[in-house]
């Protein structure tokens, strides 16, 4: 499903070179729930961005569903993100002052689906992510943190992606809500979705079936339960 071979990412700021990823290789099978854990500055976010086709590696190759991602153009990357990847962000990143339903339908814009179909799929995904139906037409800024993250999860599911990437999804939530959101991810995984999660908290990583810890751009350990 996912295969990374000798990924390197070097940031150049003036004369200073920062090596964010150093020769990272690993693969993820379909249906896995992987947590990538590491302190800030470890390179886990960079890795996440490369996996999410939001950023390209300096060298090395990344295959998603057998397709070489690092060679794609901007528009092809957009298409890939839309069809194969669902994102859940730490800051939720919902459109402000916009209804829950419209937020979930956002990735379907400019696609061939009809309006009815979009609403139908959005409602299904929202229910799937555990969102109460009474809130479907609320504005995104009227929701609690936990509800916002459920909306974001529903949005990540709308195109039935091959993998769901979650970047510190509980970073802005209290412990109780974090557990609820993590339970939701576990349920998704049990239903067969492949999930890759980034976190710096051991307790959050414990929800995953496999934990890859990364430090200074190098994989330290890769433990399957």
């Amino acid at each position: 499903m996912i295969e990374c071979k000798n990924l390197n990412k070097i940031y150049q700021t003036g004369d200073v070179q920062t090596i964010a990823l150093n020769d990272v290789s690993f693969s993820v099978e379909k249906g896995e729930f992987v947590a990538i854990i590491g302190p800030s500055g470890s390179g886990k976010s960079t890795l996440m961005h490369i996996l999410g086709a939001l950023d390209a590696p300096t060298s090395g190759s990344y295959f998603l569903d057998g397709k070489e991602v690092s060679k794609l153009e901007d528009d092809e990357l957009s298409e890939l993100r839309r069809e194969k990847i669902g994102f859940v962000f730490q800051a939720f990143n919902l459109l402000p002052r916009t209804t829950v339903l419209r937020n979930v339908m956002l990735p379907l814009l400019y696609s061939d689906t009809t309006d009815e179909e979009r609403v139908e799929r959005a409602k299904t995904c929202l229910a799937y992510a555990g969102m109460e139906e009474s809130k479907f037409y609320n504005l995104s800024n009227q929701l609690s943190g936990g509800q916002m993250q459920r909306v974001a999860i529903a949005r990540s599911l709308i195109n039935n992606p091959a993998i769901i990437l979650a970047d510190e999804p509980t970073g802005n939530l209290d412990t109780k809500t974090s557990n609820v959101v993590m339970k939701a991810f576990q349920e998704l995984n049990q239903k067969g979705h492949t999930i890759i999660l980034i976190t710096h908290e051991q307790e959050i990583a414990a929800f995953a079936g496999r934990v890859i810890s990364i430090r200074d751009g190098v994989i330290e350990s890769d433990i399957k339960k």
Partner: protein
Amino acid sequence: MIADILKETFWSLSANKVRSGLTILGIVIGIASVITMVSIGQGAQKTIESSIQAIGSNLIIITPGAQKSGSVSGGQGSSQTLTVGDADMIVAEVPNVKGIAPEVSKRYQLNAKGNNTNTQVVGTVPDYLGVRNIAIDSGTFVTSQHVKSSAKVVVLGPTVRDDIFGVGADPIGQTIRIKNVDFEVIGVALAKGGTGFSNPDNSVYVPLTSAQHFLSGDTFVTSISVAANDQNSMTAVQQQISEFLLKSHNITDPAQADFTLMNQTDIIATASSITGTFTMLLSSIAGISLLVGGIGIMNMMLTTVTERTREIGLRKAVGIKKIYINMQFLAEAVALTFLGGFVGVALGWGASLLVSKFVPQLTTVVSLSSVLLAFGVSAAVGIIFGFYPARRAANLSPMEALRYE
């Protein structure tokens, strides 16, 4: 696709009512202020131009030259060389002549109802009204029928009316004796003030032919007034009249001309310098208003960049292609500027009308060019500063855009 872009534009604008409203307000104020300022300026310019026109700055007066017997000069205007025929020929031969009025003028004693006064009696034709910018207060002016039939009718200047019949009296139908001939009063001219040549308020007007038959007793005219189409054609008209008269009077040496041309050159010079100053004033007002309006619009568009850049990052992250993002943001900028543009034009127009209504001295003129200029510049600024940052954001990688501070 198109439907999605339009819907998304509509939703985006209506979801952010305050932002959209403020942007539109910026554009409205920019456009309305330019249109109003320019309309006031142009109104003032028109008012000044027309008061200069009222003095008759495009007037050329032809008088006969000095009569010479041997080495003794009789002085300007003493010879009798101009005829009605000259006037007719000028109309036929010289272009850019708006009106021409030959006249026979001389001072006579007037009496009626026991009052009498000595005043200028002008024998002339209907064109005189337009050429000398005289307006009729009541009754009518001399008509061509009167001229044809040498009718014994007279139009009074307001001062003469006041002197003979009393201030504000209605003298129409009364009779006045000029040089022992009875003339019937058919009209009174509107007070006008001095022209630099004579005081038209203290004159009376009779048909040209009547003046020739009953008063002067010959067929010559004492002067011919020519109105050029506008100030710009003055020099050419004057030149052509001069050449034409020399030819028709069989004079080869211009120094020997038996006529003199006069115009109000200093008035024209003043007029054109005032007009020039006004044009500069107008351009500065328009320029400054456009600058202020443009900066306002730019400000509104740029203050939303941070929030919008994150939004663009999100849209890219969920897989929307760059071209759709660009199109949506262009559509938003166009919608905002046009909405603001139409309201601004209407408001500016309304404001100019209100100024006209409540400040009677200021007649405002809304010109198409100021509307187009204001709309064009505002639309360009709005679209450029609405679209350009969005385009730049859409070219960033989604992660950079999402993290934009």
